[in-house]
């Protein structure tokens, strides 16, 4: 612990992973203060970068949000100190918590006034493509496109569960952050990611069974993945 780094005009000790763990495990005040500075910086940086989520908030509200996120991340880091495996720098590991908390808060702010029920209960399914209305296309290609669109609609309407359809509509079509649906449904990110994963697999497999390869469909519409 010899080299020093300057942050916020103060001098902070540069610690190895072992030094961080030992100091924090011992309740060392200087290490706690330094860690708090790291996570506050990460929270402020994240909110500054996430203007598309929090552009409507004023400087004071954003500053307070960053402080709250820093405090929450600090508590989470200290609680999970025993799970740090040393596969990264301790500070990068700590940043991950602060960034996660700050983005959760930023997305919550962005979507607070949006009715997710309205989005989740919509009924929109794919019906058109980049080439779908092109009258210059040869009839065979147009027929293939129509067949592909029908297969996709059929997969969504008849092979996905109601929950999968809602999630697909919100997260893939309307780009609602997964966290917001998690919050709305009182679920967790892993469970909803799995639900989407299963929906994608079903879609892919259904299209395959109908003789379509997803890459080929994208090609068909001039949108190669």
């Amino acid at each position: 612990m010899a080299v020093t780094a300057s942050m916020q005009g103060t001098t902070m000790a540069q610690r190895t992973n072992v030094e961080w763990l030992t100091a924090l495990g011992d309740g060392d005040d200087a290490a706690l203060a330094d860690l708090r500075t790291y996570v506050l910086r990460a929270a402020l940086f994240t909110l500054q970068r996430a203007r598309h989520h929090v552009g409507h908030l004023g400087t004071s509200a954003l500053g307070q949000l960053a402080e709250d996120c820093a405090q929450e991340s600090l508590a989470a880091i200290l609680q999970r100190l025993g799970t740090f495996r040393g596969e990264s720098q301790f500070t990068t590991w700590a940043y991950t918590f602060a960034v996660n908390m700050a983005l959760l808060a930023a997305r919550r702010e962005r979507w607070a006034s949006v009715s997710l029920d309205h989005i989740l209960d919509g009924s929109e399914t794919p019906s058109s493509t980049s080439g779908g209305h092109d009258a210059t296309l040869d009839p065979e290609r147009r027929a293939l496109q129509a067949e592909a669109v029908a297969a996709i609609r059929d997969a969504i309407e008849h092979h996905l569960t109601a929950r999968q359809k809602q999630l697909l509509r919100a997260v893939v079509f309307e780009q609602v952050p997964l966290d917001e649906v998690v919050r709305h449904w009182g679920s967790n990110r892993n469970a909803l990611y799995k639900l989407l994963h299963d929906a994608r697999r079903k879609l892919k497999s259904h299209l395959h069974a109908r003789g379509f390869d997803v890459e080929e469909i994208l090609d068909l519409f001039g949108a190669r993945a």
Partner: protein
Amino acid sequence: MSVSKFERLLRLASRTQEQELSCTECFDVLPQYVDLEVAGAAPERELPLFRQHLEQCAVCREEYETVRELARLEAEGRSPSIDDLRRSL
């Protein structure tokens, strides 16, 4: 439905794998991946499922991009100060 929504769905479906990382697994691997990347290594070779998860999950991708930027600035000795960040909010 707009063209972009249709294509977005197909692109996600085309990159779907039988086995994918969960968001928690992605969170756990993220700092290691970022450190390797910032150090100039090629972590996508060692941790291909991490990159695949990011293609599918916008929230994890946003977190990864932010942590990577922070770590990169730190490695270059250009970390923003708290005062500067507060002023720029």
